[in-house]
Each structure stands twice: as C-alpha cells, then as structure tokens.
C-alpha cells in the first residue's frame, strides 16, 4: 500500500470528527455520574453535619421520649430487626420456591405465562396498595392486629415479586449442560435442583434477597397504612406485639417542631444508612464469594 492512500486527508478529517464525537459522549457520561455522586455527597454531608452531634450509645439504647436528650431508637431498631428477620424468613422459602417451580418444573402453558405476567406487574404496584391489602387481610381479616407479624407479612408481599424475578434470573443463568449432566447420571429432577442448580444459583439468589430486604428496611408507607405506631416506649417481646420501625421514627421526629428532634432524625438517618450499606456490602460479598465459574 502506498503512502498516498495512507494519508487520505478527507478520511483523517472525518476520523477526527468521529473521535471528537466519542470524547463528547464520554464527557457527557462523566457529567452524569458526577452529578449523581455530587447530590449523594451533599445529602450525606448535610445529614452528617446535622446528626453527628446526636450520635451516641444512648441513641441506640434509649426509647423515644419527649425530651430530646433522653430519646433513642431502641424500639425502632428492635422493630426493624424483627421485621427484617420475619420478612426474610417468610419471603425466602416462598420466593425461591416460586422461582424454582417456574424455572425447573412448570410447563410453558397459558397458566404459567399468566403467573409470570402477574408477578412482573406486581413488582410495579405501589407499596401503599400492599399496605391497604395488609390492613384488610392480615390486620383485620386474620386479626393479627397492628403487630410486627402483620407488618412483616405485608412487607413480604411488597418484596416477593422482586425476589422471585431475581431468583429466576439466577436459576436461569445456571448452564443447561449442568442439568443434563446430572439427569444423564440417573438423578431425579429434585436431586438435580438440590445438588447442582441451587448451589450454583445461590450467590445470585442471596444477592437479590438482600437487595429486596434493604428496600424493605426503608419502606414506610405500607407500615403506616397497617397502623404501625409512631411512638413505642417498650421492648418488643414477640411477633404479635405492636411496633415501629426506623423510617417511621425518623418521620415522627422530623415532624416535631423542636430543632433538637431534627438533629435526632438526622442521626437516625445515619443509623439507617449504615444498616443499608452493610446489607448491600454483604450482598456484594456473597455474590463474589458464591459466584461459580463455568
């Protein structure tokens, strides 16, 4: 090839234009991510400045009170932990079971497709609707009252569609060759699922569940709808006790006129954020730890 064709001026001008366009797009993407990070930073710094002074051991061990310096998140933390524990215990078997059934057992017929479409739609239903359902069915219908159990059952409904969808994706990512290998050895469908599909998919399943649970931690609307209290000054003894959770306590403090309570609210937000970040961190850890190489 001659040097003349290599130094094609028209081509070089066009190439410069193409590269400028590429750099422009890269810059736009950078601005987008910086904007997001900036807003997050401003929020974090603002909350931290407001709440840092109120962070103390007492914040975690005291009940709420009308005196700001004696106020704490004890009952709200208990409520949140109870609710997350119960919600996890309820939603894991139901969600994973549904995902296994749909992926491994169900025939591809109109009934399966009907269920699939409904689950996908349920994931988009506003959580307050679930709150109304919980109020009508769990609180009044099953007479569970405004208990942490009723709250957990409602929250289970909120996050189940998300858990089912993410678990199905994790199960679908397990290569078919693995299932065939097991079946060709004379394994039953259950043995194949139990020994090969589930262990391989478990990283993805757990990640989905933890992310769904961290959404549940922050949810307030459905719990207010079923009548979770805003002021609880006693320890939670069991699943049928009335309860409150962190976001509701924070909401309660924000709505009070005294500035001290706003500081408490900011401190509460920090506690909530720490819980959320640790759960997300756990999700990342589990994903890296359990991810299988094929």
């Amino acid at each position, binding site marked *: 090839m001659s040097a003349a064709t290599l130094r094609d001026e028209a081509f070089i001008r066009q190439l410069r234009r193409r590269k400028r366009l590429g750099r422009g797009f890269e810059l736009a993407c950078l601005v987008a991510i910086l904007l997001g990070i900036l807003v997050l930073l401003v929020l974090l710094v603002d909350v931290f400045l407001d709440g840092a002074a109120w962070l103390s051991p007492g914040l975690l061990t005291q009940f709420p009170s009308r005196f700001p310096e004696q106020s704490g998140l004890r009952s709200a933390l208990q409520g949140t932990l109870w609710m997350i524990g119960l919600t996890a215990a309820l939603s894991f078997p139901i969600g994973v079971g549904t995902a296994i059934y749909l992926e491994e057992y169900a*025939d*591809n017929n109109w009934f399966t497709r009907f269920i699939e479409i409904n689950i996908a739609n349920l994931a988009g239903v506003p959580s307050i609707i679930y709150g109304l359902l919980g109020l009508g069915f769990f609180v009044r219908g099953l007479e569970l009252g405004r208990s942490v159990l009723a709250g957990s059952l409602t929250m289970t409904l909120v996050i189940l569609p998300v858990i089912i969808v993410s678990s199905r994706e994790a199960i679908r990512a397990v*290569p078919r*060759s*693995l299932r*065939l*290998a*097991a*079946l*060709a*050895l*004379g*394994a*039953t469908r259950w*043995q194949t699922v139990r*020994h*090969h599909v589930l262990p*391989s998919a478990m990283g993805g399943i757990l990640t989905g569940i933890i992310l769904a649970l961290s959404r549940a931690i922050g949810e307030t609307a459905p719990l207010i709808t079923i009548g979770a209290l805003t002021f609880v000054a006693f320890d939670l003894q069991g699943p049928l006790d009335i309860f409150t959770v962190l976001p509701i306590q924070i909401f309660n403090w924000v709505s009070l006129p005294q500035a001290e309570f706003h500081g408490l609210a900011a401190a509460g937000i920090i506690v909530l954020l720490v819980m959320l970040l640790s759960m997300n961190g756990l999700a990342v850890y589990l994903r890296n730890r359990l991810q*299988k*190489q*094929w």
Partner: protein
Amino acid sequence: MTTLNVPRYTPVTPHTNGRYAVEARNLRIYYGHFLAIRDVNLLVERKKITAIIGPSGCGKSTVLRAFNRMNELVPTARTEGEVLFSGQNIYSPEVDPVEVRRRIGMVFQKPNPFPKSIYENVAWGARINGFRGDLDALVRESLEQAALWDEVKDKLNQSGLSLSGGQQQRLCIARAIAIKPEIILMDEPASALDPIATLKIEELMRELARDYTIIIVTHNMQQAARASHYTAFFMMDEDRAGMMVEYGPTERIFTNPKDKRTEDYITGRFG
C-alpha cells in the same frame, strides 16, 4: 468389583434372545410437527463400539439421545416406536426415565464436569443412586478405567474445572462409568478436543469396549473408521427427516459400501 444395589429388569419379550445390547425398532422422533427421525431400525451389538456417522443435521444426536430418553427434556420432542433394552421397551409407560439413564450412561459433546471436586464429580452419581460400599474404591476404580487416575490422584479435592479439556472429558467418562451402566452413549465426545486428547479418548473407548457397549456419534469419519466396530450411516431424506442409510461392520462400510450414498459420503463427495 462393587455393584450398585438397583433392581434389574426382567426380560419380557426377548425378541432376539437378548443378543443385542439395545435395539431401535421403527424409531420415529418428532420435534413438534417436524419429523426429525424416520423409521430407524438399529441392532446394537454388545460390548462393541457402534459409530453413528452422517452429515450435519441428519439427526445423529437425536437418535443417540433416544437411547436414554434424554430427548424428553426437549419440550416438543415426541418419540414413536420402540427401544428395546434387555428385552424391554424403555418407552413403555411403566418404565421410569431415571431408571433408564442410570443403566445407559452418557458423555456429552462439550466436557461438562460439575463445579465440584474431582472426587465429588465421580462419586455423586453413585451416591444419589443409593450406592452402599467403598466410595473411595469406586472413585479410584472409575478414574483408573477412564485412564485419568495417575493424573489426578494427588488432587482429588481440586475442582473438576481446573483440569484441561481432554482431562475434563475423561472425568466425565469416569463419572459415567461410576454408576456401572451397561451402555455408554457418547455424543461427539472429542469434537471439542485437540488431536492428542482425541486419540486418548479413542484409546480409552477401545479399552472400555471390553466391559461396556458404546454408541458414539461422530462427524469425524476417520474417527469412526479408527475406533468403531460397527458403523451406521445416517442422512436426511427429501423432507429433511433423518434416516439410516446403511449399517454394518465398520470395515465393510468403509471398504465396500452397498449404498451409493454411503460411498459418496465416505469418499468425501458430500457432507
């Protein structure tokens, strides 16, 4: 030698006095409305290697999977006709496909060891099938038969995926042997391997043919000529349905084919 504690079939209709390891009789396979395999009649000799050859898309693998009911895992597949194993039709309603697969093992085209240890890869099949006995001895014996023991004996706890492609495929063969099948089906077992690993697999097949009946699908005619005792030549008819054109001792098929189409294929005129 340890044996699995699984009840055996009793021959019901010994059409051919159990002379053959497995017999396909008027075997027809559909995918939806599409006829994929037309009226295959194939008598597979015991403890011999039978190769199924033919151009791409002629249904070789479909026929192979019919012998251990793996086609059923394809939702639209439908099988007609009979596959007689120990005189019993494996497609009759009272036969459980799990039982069939336990007796007729399979090795796949792409090595697919479990993402578990080498030991566990071999032991798992026996364990889920209710093996009671010395599992360590079974693992060793199976790996020895698969000509892999010397290479892995010091790293049985390492992942099966840490092995090379050829080793992985021999691990898959060891895994199949460990449940003591009577027949081993191999679906192009060397097509993903390099020539040296391929030769090892072929040597291994000749060794295994002393104890097992082997049916191998291959698109590699030299492989069929080198390694098999019997050869079945398949091709598509006008409706794109696969059918068996000719079947006989490998030497005769390759030196003196009766059918013009077989001759054209093995001399490289098409395919």
